[in-house]
């Protein structure tokens, strides 16, 4: 029986749900000390002086550092040269939350008390806390070397003026894609121990080798004695692939004071110091005919990079513009983007990273076309879909060569669950009844780019390479250990990889362990991001397992005096096809694989051990069709999601339970962006949503039940056929929700509402329409 496709319970869960997980903060090596930051309370200011005397005098304080103590050190890796963030602010601070000083003390309470005693004298400068302010003429400049606040501008190759002039109809939207704070349950945490045998850094991170390589390079120390360990990691959402000053500071301070140094970010710090996501503004125009067929699309993305642009953040508008056309055949597409710095927290990848922004805009435009032409939104989608027989499909972007998809199929499947005609009748009825809540139905046929990626793709973001490693090691008793360079942090990869390996190896699922996260144990690795763990890493597990299995068969054939081609396996027993009575168990094959005298000619001991650096030829393209039904309270403006129908196409499903979990979580984050979350700043750059009282992360009780369906279009770029599903929900949900809200209000002439759709925004619209 195949395990791939089965609803197998997670191997990870017994530990995690009984509180026996081990996170970095749980580690408490002997002599462990604690580091605490003093963070800027100013958005933009010169530092006149920092008085550390009182803090240093506090008993238990071991060190207090400002930029003066590390003047010779390079800035934090990952940034753009000349615009990168210092480990501690030098002379000037550029966002609220930027590190200004650190204290190390024997415990965290003393460190926090000492941090309170540090007096920073700021000379405030004017701040720019929004894109419009940063781009206004005469705006204060964050980085002198830029001469302005635009980091990079990519103009249209061809602005499609003729196509737009000739089109029967055109429409435009200005869209603000709201800034979000990733907010994993576990904030940034690290623990450094730099002793005689080298540097070990335990870090809540998604790509430990990436960090190991970088930190060794940064300090000019050899990688063999630099070890990074990401144990259990409590969520990342992309925020934990960024290099942050604490990694380098704890390491250096550990070396300096000769003790382990731990840093655990507080929740308040996490909201301003962990890198944010989204923060784009779009100017989008479409040209179309009277039947709703799209003739041309034009999109300018303005990306808020926050105070210090980084490689990942710079990649966001590239991904957004690459996916601008969604799942539609659009004859002409023009893209342009601009990266701008502001006095806000730096921006980087956040679940979906650039693709939710793309799908939101194109799906809003589709509904706008429906609204303008009177053609039903479902029909507008159908008329413009890339047909099933058009793959591989070259888009306007060299990055996005769509290799597969069945967009109409997903929509058909969705409509089997949604009683669309009834809902439309109900909507009309309620519009006539002033006491009834308004009803809205919103669709999103979304598509994203995932499975990062083909050679060169992750290198562009500063990674070593784009493969993922898998090592399959058979133990003498016939159990297997798999080492993976993908570093899971909640995905359930330990379970899915064991399923894949169990099928390939014929070894019982319960006798397969998966190890990850430790650079001293795992072969080179890349990490978990961009929905790549199964599409790339899982494929590697399959390849390596297959190689091991071939060798195991040769050993079994030798022991059975048969030919390897005739050997099959069942219940962990190898036998010649047709003669199950004479068999040799996996345990014996494994045992003998280590004994030279038992091996077939030409085979060396250790043959049941294979390491693969799995490459894939293309990205993957998960897609789906979602429908959201909302009710709007006419008196309060409150929006309530009544139903959420979700059809995903992530290709082959390894474990439906985990796919559903990823979809549920991704959709929750999508709904959060659509209705709740918005990291807001006042004009002076002070965060207005600096606690969970104001930055509203929804809880389970605020989310609807989901009705899920699925179609399977296998991924042609790997043999598993899996496309990845980690980010899907966050790509598909926001446009479905907002389309539903706009649909509910469309009879009032509403064309668009920016996220998050709050009760007061809706109430203002309803009042305005009176």
């Amino acid at each position: 029986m195949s395990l791939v496709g089965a609803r197998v319970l997670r191997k990870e869960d017994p530990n995690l749900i009984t509180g026996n997980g081990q996170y970095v903060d749980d580690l408490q090596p002997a002599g462990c000390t604690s580091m605490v930051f003093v963070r800027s309370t100013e958005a933009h200011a010169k530092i006149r002086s920092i008085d550390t005397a009182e803090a240093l005098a506090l008993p238990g304080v071991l060190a207090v550092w400002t930029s003066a103590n590390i003047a010779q050190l390079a800035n934090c890796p990952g940034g753009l040269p000349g615009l990168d963030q210092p480990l501690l602010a030098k002379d000037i601070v550029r966002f609220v939350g930027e590190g200004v000083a650190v204290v190390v003390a024997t415990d965290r309470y003393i460190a926090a008390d000492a941090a309170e005693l540090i007096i920073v004298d700021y000379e405030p400068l004017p701040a720019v806390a929004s894109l419009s302010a940063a781009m206004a003429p005469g705006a204060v400049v964050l980085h002198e070397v830029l001469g302005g606040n635009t980091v990079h501008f990519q103009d249209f190759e061809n602005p499609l003026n003729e196509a737009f002039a000739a089109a029967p109809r055109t429409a435009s939207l200005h869209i603000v894609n709201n800034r979000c704070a990733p907010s994993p349950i576990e904030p940034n945490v690290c623990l450094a121990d730099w002793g005689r045998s080298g540097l070990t850094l335990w870090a809540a991170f998604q790509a430990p080798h990436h960090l190991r390589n970088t930190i060794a390079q940064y300090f000019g120390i050899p990688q063999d004695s630099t070890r990074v360990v990401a144990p259990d990691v409590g969520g990342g959402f992309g925020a934990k692939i960024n290099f942050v000053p604490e990694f380098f500071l704890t390491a250096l301070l550990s070396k300096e004071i000769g003790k382990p140094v731990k840093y655990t970010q507080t929740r308040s710090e996490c909201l301003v110091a962990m890198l944010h996501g989204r923060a784009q503004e779009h100017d989008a125009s479409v040209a179309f005919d009277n039947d709703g067929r799209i003739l041309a699309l034009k999109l300018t993305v303005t990306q808020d990079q926050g105070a210090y642009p980084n490689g990942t953040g710079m990649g966001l508008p590239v991904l957004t513009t690459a996916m601008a056309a969604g799942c539609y055949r659009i004859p002409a597409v023009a893209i342009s983007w601009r990266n701008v710095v502001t006095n806000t927290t730096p921006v980087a990848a956040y679940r979906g990273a650039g693709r939710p922004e793309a799908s939101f805009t194109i799906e809003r435009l589709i509904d706008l076309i429906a609204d303008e032409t009177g053609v039903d939104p479902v029909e507008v989608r159908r008329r413009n879909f890339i047909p099933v027989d058009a793959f591989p499909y070259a888009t306007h972007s060299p990055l996005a060569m769509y290799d597969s998809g069945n967009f109409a199929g997903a929509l058909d499947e969705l409509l089997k669950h949604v009683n669309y005609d009834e809902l439309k009748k109900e909507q009309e009825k309620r519009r006539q009844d002033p006491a009834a809540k308004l009803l809205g139905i919103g669709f999103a046929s979304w598509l994203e780019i995932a499975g990062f990626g083909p050679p060169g793709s992750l290198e562009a973001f500063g990674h070593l390479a784009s493969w993922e490693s898998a090592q399959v090691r058979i133990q003498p008793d016939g159990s297997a250990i798999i080492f993976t360079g993908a570093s899971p942090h909640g995905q359930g990869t330990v379970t899915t990889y064991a399923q894949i390996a169990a099928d390939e190896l014929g070894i019982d699922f319960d006798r397969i362990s998966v190890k990850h996260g430790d650079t001293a144990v795992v072969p080179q690795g890349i990490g978990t991001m961009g929905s790549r763990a199964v599409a790339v890493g899982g494929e590697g597990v399959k390849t390596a397992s297959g190689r091991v299995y071939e060798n195991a068969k040769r050993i079994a054939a030798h022991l059975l005096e048969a030919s390897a081609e005739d050997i099959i396996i069942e219940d962990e027993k190898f036998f010649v096809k047709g003669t199950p009575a004479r068999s040799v168990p996996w345990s014996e094959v494994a045992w003998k694989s280590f004994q030279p005298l038992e091996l077939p000619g030409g085979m060396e001991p250790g043959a049941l051990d294979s390491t693969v650096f799995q490459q894939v030829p293309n990205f993957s393209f998960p897609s789906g069709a979602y429908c959201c039904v909302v009710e709007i309270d006419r008196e309060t403006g409150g929006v309530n999601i009544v139903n959420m129908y979700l059809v995903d196409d992530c290709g082959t499903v390894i474990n439906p339970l985990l796919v559903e979990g990823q979809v549920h979580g991704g959709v929750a984050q999508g709904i959060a962006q659509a209705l709740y979350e918005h990291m807001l700043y006042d004009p002076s750059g002070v965060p207005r949503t600096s606690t969970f009282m104001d930055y509203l992360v929804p809880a389970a009780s605020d989310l609807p039940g989901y009705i899920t369906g699925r179609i399977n279009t296998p991924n042609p770029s790997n043999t598993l056929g899996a496309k990845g599903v980690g980010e899907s929900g966050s790509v598909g949900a926001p446009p479905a929700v907002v389309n539903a809200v706009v649909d509910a209000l469309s009879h009032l002439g509403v064309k668009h509402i920016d996220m998050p759709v709050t009760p007061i925004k809706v109430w203002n619209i309803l009042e305005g329409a009176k």
Partner: protein
Amino acid sequence: MIPAQFDYVEATSVADAIRLLAEHGDEAKLLAGGHSLIPLMKLRLVTPATLIDVTHIKELSYIKEDGNNIVIGALTRHRDIEESDLVKKHLPLVAHVAGEVGDPQVRNRGTIGGSLVHGDPAADLPAAALATGATMVIAGKNGERRISAQDFFVDFLETDVQPGEILVAIEFPKHTDAGWAYEKFVRRAMDYSIVGVALQLGAKPGVALVNMSNKPHLAVSASQAIGKGAAIADVLAVINDDTNPPEDLNATVEYRQHLARVLTQRAFATASK
């Protein structure tokens, strides 16, 4: 998110608490459920030198019937009030409101006394105390004194509890078999109200508003109008009298006053059923 240093002492009785309050002076704070105090300490918005833990004073955790009153000890947890048959029977509004506070974790720790003394205009239980016409029983070195809920709330996070005093009980007049309703408008289920309305009908009606003023707010004119049997439209016309609603990310003054009207109307519809 890391509180400043503080000392910790445990009070074993009301008298002991009063003695400890006198001993430690202004720098001391009583610790009940900690669900308002500890968040403020973690943000270092308050930095008491000493916490006097009163949660071990068993004599302050009770719900009992006393003639025409239901008396609730100040240290009774929200959860116990929510589940009490006595409260459900005679003060269904209070039982319901206790069940609307935060989430189950909060309700299992937080105490009614802590909620009332904290004096947060956005909190739920103060509104229930105002609408039902409760009386606070406060103990100090000179014995016990009583004060109406209306006079108890003084300003933002400020009540009539004086230095050296402890709230020991709340006396609620029974509202058996009378109509009631609580309307809480929130964006997330666990949140404090953007606006809330607590309505008690019957012989001694009252309507109180949540997050509509600098302190928990009894809508005096509206309560009087209800008492005189005024039509709902007339009640709504005065519901925002004397309010002073805050402006924040969730609401403007205008929107809050609108919500107060909408929620009062809904409360009436529910309470009159």
